[in-house]
Structure formats: C-alpha cells, structure tokens
C-alpha cells in the first residue's frame, strides 16, 4: 500500500500547512498596481511591518492598469495607479473609490549608448522617436540638440511598456499635449497602440530591456534609472529650458498644479521655468466603504502613517512629497473612509 501511504503523507502535509498557517493569524492586506512608485511603496511596507507587526502589506507591482482593474474587481484591498481613473471606470466601481495621492515622480528618457553621453531632447524629438519617424541616433533632430556629442549611425530601439501602466499614462499624456499628431494617432491611456518599439513588462521590465539592449531608448520612473545607473536626458520644458529630472524640478511642476477635490490631476508639460515637463503624481485607490472592518482600520492607519511619516522617505528615493496643504486635504479625505 505504498501509494496510499504516500497519499496519506501528502494529505497530512496539506493539513499541517493549513493548520500552521491559520495558527499564527497575521493580517495580510493585499494591494496591486503601479510599478512607478514600487520602490518607495516596497520601502514603506517594509518599514511599516516593523511599526505594526500585526499586519503585512503585500504589494504586487503589476502595472497601473492592473491596479485599476483589480480594485474594480475587488480582488485586492487597495489599488495603485499613476494615471487617475477615468470617469467611465469610476462609474463601474461597486462603491465610491477614493484617489489618495502619495508622491510625485518623473518619467525620464533613459537610454543605452556607448560611453553613456549626456543628452538633451525636446518635445518634437521625443514624439518623433516614439512615432517611429526618427529612426537613427544620428538623426539631425537629435544631433541638432546635442552639439558636441558624437552619436552613432545606429537604429534607436524604442522600449515601451507592454502592460497597462501609469508611467505610460504620464508619458502619453505628455506626448498628447505637445504633439497633435500623437494625440490623434495614439492618444492617452495606460496602454496604447504603439507605433513602434519593443515592449517590456513594468518599469522593471522596460529598464531591464534598456539595460540589455545597446541603442535602446525608453521611459522609466527616475528612481529606476538612478538605481540602475542608466543615463537619462534633460528635456526642454514649456518655458524653453532644458531641465534635468530631479526632486526639485518635479516639485516645481507639482506646485503649479491646480488640484481638484477628487485629487485627479495632471502635471505634465507644467508651466514654470524649472519645471520638469514629464512628471506625474501617483495614487492609491481605496474604497470609501471598507467591507472588512478590521482590514479597513489597518489600512486607514497605514494611509495616515504614509501621509505623515512615509512622505519623509520620499526624497531618499528621488520622489517628490506632496505639498503640505495637499497633505492636509489628503488626511481629511482618509478620515472619510468608513468601515
């Protein structure tokens, strides 16, 4: 009866696994979405595990599209997105969804070229590259902006996101604002019909692709470029200045925003001499009415901690914290969450 003994062993194993896991009940709050703020979120959740050991926040960076979709389907306790949800999607939600802005960041133009020269781009050039019209690194449009840099006669490998992404939302939002052709041909969304390039999954995937592919150019959140020592370009803003993405230039862009009551706002192509033009905020998506009171309570505690203490970690990871007045409004909104 070897086989049945074997089966019994397996059965015992399952039983054991079940018992041991329920014995030490630790609350798990599940979230999913944006990869754009993933570095800071994972830092937060790691820190928060020390502050409140009774709860763990499991965050899967599947992309902002995923964050919106999964919170709508209620398969996660909170979602995360760097593109605000559309009215249409909000209307499909089974309850009122709140946008809680956490930090702001920048989409940077990262690339992989021999010698990693410092480069400058303007709106036309970026749109041209992503529309597939500028194909080579030594195109006059690029060399014109970068006199003094010798660029190779090499094809530009455009890398974009293959998944639904808020980073893409910010990127396409910017391109739609500065290029009428982009607006009509492609448009703004978390996923679009790309005219050219290869797809990577998540900011991680795009950064990985750029790093693996000589001649590649793509957009990733600032911290991914910094952590992976990839060069990223200065971009000409609406005031005509070339601006390097940084906490300061993101904060400047953020300061220009007129933020409505539902906190859905865009800061791409922001005015201001020193504002980085491809910046955006990122949001946590939570239901105002929490189904599970215990989880809801812990979630609110965390959100408050993030708005107050978490924000202080933002700068270490090159994200811009929310301005003080906005923070107050956010805290008030968090108080509206019911259980």
């Amino acid at each position, binding site marked *: 009866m070897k086989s049945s003994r074997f089966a019994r062993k397996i059965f015992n194993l399952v039983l054991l696994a079940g018992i041991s896991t329920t014995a030490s009940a630790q609350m798990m709050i599940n979230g999913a979405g944006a990869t754009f703020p993933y570095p800071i979120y994972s830092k937060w959740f790691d820190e928060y595990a020390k502050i409140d050991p009774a709860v763990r926040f499991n965050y899967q960076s599947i992309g902002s599209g995923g964050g*919106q979709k999964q919170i709508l389907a209620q398969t996660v306790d909170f979602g995360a997105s760097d593109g605000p949800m559309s009215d249409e999607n909000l209307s499909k939600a089974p309850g009122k969804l709140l946008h809680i802005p956490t930090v702001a960041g920048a989409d940077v133009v990262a690339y992989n070229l021999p010698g990693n020269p410092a480069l400058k781009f303007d709106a036309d050039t970026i749109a041209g590259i992503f529309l597939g019209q500028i194909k080579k690194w030594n195109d006059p449009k690029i060399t014109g902006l970068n006199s003094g840099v010798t660029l190779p006669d090499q094809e530009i490998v455009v890398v974009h996101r293959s*998944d639904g992404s808020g980073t893409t939302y910010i990127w396409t939002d910017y391109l739609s604002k500065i290029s009428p052709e982009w607006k009509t041909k492609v448009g703004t969304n978390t996923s679009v019909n*790309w005219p050219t390039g290869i797809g990577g999954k998540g900011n991680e995937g795009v950064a990985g692709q750029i790093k693996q592919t000589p001649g590649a150019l793509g957009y990733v959140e600032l911290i991914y470029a910094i952590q992976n020592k990839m060069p990223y370009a200065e971009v000409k803003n609406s005031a005509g200045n070339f601006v390097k993405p940084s906490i300061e230039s993101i904060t400047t862009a953020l300061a220009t925003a007129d933020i409505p009551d539902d906190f859905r706002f865009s800061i791409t192509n922001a005015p201001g001499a020193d504002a980085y033009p491809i910046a955006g905020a990122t949001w946590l998506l939570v239901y105002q009415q929490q189904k599970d009171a215990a989880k809801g309570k812990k979630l609110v505690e965390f959100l408050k901690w993030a708005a107050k203490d978490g924000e202080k970690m933002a700068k270490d990871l090159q994200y811009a914290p929310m301005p003080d007045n906005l923070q107050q409004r956010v805290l008030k909104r968090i108080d509206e969450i019911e259980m």
Partner: protein
Amino acid sequence: MEIATPPAVATVEPHSARRAMAPPSRFGDKAFEWLTLAMAMAVVVLVILLGWELWRGSSLAIKKFGFHFLTTSTWDPVADQFGALPFIYGTVVSSLIALLIAVPLSIATAAYLTELAPLWIRQPLVSLIEMLAAIPSVILGLWGIFVMIPWLRDYPFPLLKRLFGWTPFFTGPIYGTSMLAGGIIIAIMILPIITSVSREILRSVPNLQREAAYALGATRWEVTRIAVLSYAKKGLFGAVILGLGRALGETMAVTMVIGNTPQIAASLFKPGYTLASVIANEFTEATTDMYLQALFEIGLVLLGTTILANLLAQLLLQTMSTTSTTRAVQ
C-alpha cells in the same frame, strides 16, 4: 520466447475479460466503480469548464467584433478596438521557426537513437533529452534573456543579416529580442517532445521492415531511410503536429525574449507578440471590460488552435502505435 510478449498485448481486450471474472457485484464494488468513474469523468468536466469559462468571458467581444477579431490588426486599448491578427501572426511565425529548427534535429536524433547509435550511448542520451524536457519554461527564459539574446545579437544575427540581408526576412535593426529569438527558444522547448515521440514511433516499426531491407543489401542509412523513416511517415507527422501544439501554447520563455509588440513585420529581427504572451502580460491589467473580453477571446482562440493541433496529432499517432507512444507524449 513467445510467452514474453510485451504487456501491451494483454491489454488489447482487458475489459470484457475482467468483467467476466468479477464476482457478483456488491455495494462496495458498485460504489468504487462509480467513484472512479466520477474521477475519470473529470477530464470531460475540465474540457467543458475550459471552453465554457473562456466563452463566457469573451461573449461580448465575440458579439462586438465577430469574425473580424481574427482578421484585423488594431490592438488599441484607447479606442477599445481589438484585433488579434498580430498575435495570431506572431504565434504562427514563431511556431513555424521553431518547427523549422526542431523537426530535422529531432527526427534525426530519434533515428540516431533507434537505428544508428551504438547501444551503450542510447539510454544516457534518452535520459539527457528527458532532462531537457524537465527544464521549466521560465528558466529557459532567464537563460534566453541573459545568455542567448546577447550571443544571438553579437554573432548569428549579424551573420544572417550579411548573408541574407537581401531577403525581407533579415532586414532592419538587430534588437536581439525578436521573433527569431522567440522561435529559437520555442524550438529548444519542443525538441525533447518531438524527439521522444518520434523515437517511440520508430521503435514501433516492425523489425521485419529492417530485416527485409538489410537482406536486399542496404546500408544502415538506407535501411533507416527506406525501411524505417518512410514507413513511419504518418506517425512522425503526428509527432511534429504534437510539437506544433506545444509551440503554439508556449508562454513564459517566449514572453521573455520575443519583444512583446503587436505588429506584423516580415523581418524576423523585429519583435513580435504571441497569443499566450499577450495574456501573460496584459491579463491582470486590462482596464476596460472590452479589453478583458478581448483577452478572454484570445484565450479561446489559443485553446481552439492547440486543441485542434492535439486532436490531429493524436489521430495520426493512434493509427501508428501502442500505449507507449502516448506515454512519451507526457
């Protein structure tokens, strides 16, 4: 010895014989029979479940796009327009590349293993091929990203471009991640299955065939070619189709090397996208209902094509063989 016939013979008509031997049924017997029947019916339930879930999930998209879903190439989540043609194209082309590489190698290896190789080498080789089959897709993908792609980009791809750059298939920039890389990784994944099924097929060729050819003075290769390979043609075709079925559904390794871009381009250096990869990448993140529906429909298309390929393969193989073939299938 005649008595030492393979066990398969004993199974030709087992059921009636066994039933006749059974004592009059008791409750326990009936219960056990019903229990096992219920479990065996699981396979039917599973097929219905697969079809039903995918159908249910995609009914709106099917209604909205109809047959055009398969023939249009716009994949535009902004406009809620979805056509699966680039994914079908990517799946078909990457699978064809894989077959082109894998079929000759696999069948030659199978012939080597059954006809040509020294006896001592056969079993170790078979074991190694089984081990290759056991490597998970994601690990081949990992190897593909960090080892295969950089190597392809530096050596074979530029060479191909130099030699065949005049054809439309090897033009344009070399990214590394490409349709061709996807095809090669799929080829590696289906080599073991085509080889082992082909080997079983060749083993099932009656020895009489070989003896007759040898008697005519044929060389070893001539015996293999005339008496064995051509005799087993149909079965080998079944093995190839079975490999095709696997190729169509390969997911992780392909997703990691193919470039994930829905486009139809002649150049194999260009990135592509397959039915399975688009599900892997976009399924959890489709924001609109229609987007999700379209992905479910892609799942349905994938299920349909792989089931068709497998049906065809099983039919071809059944005409050839015994239980040993289906064993190798797994």
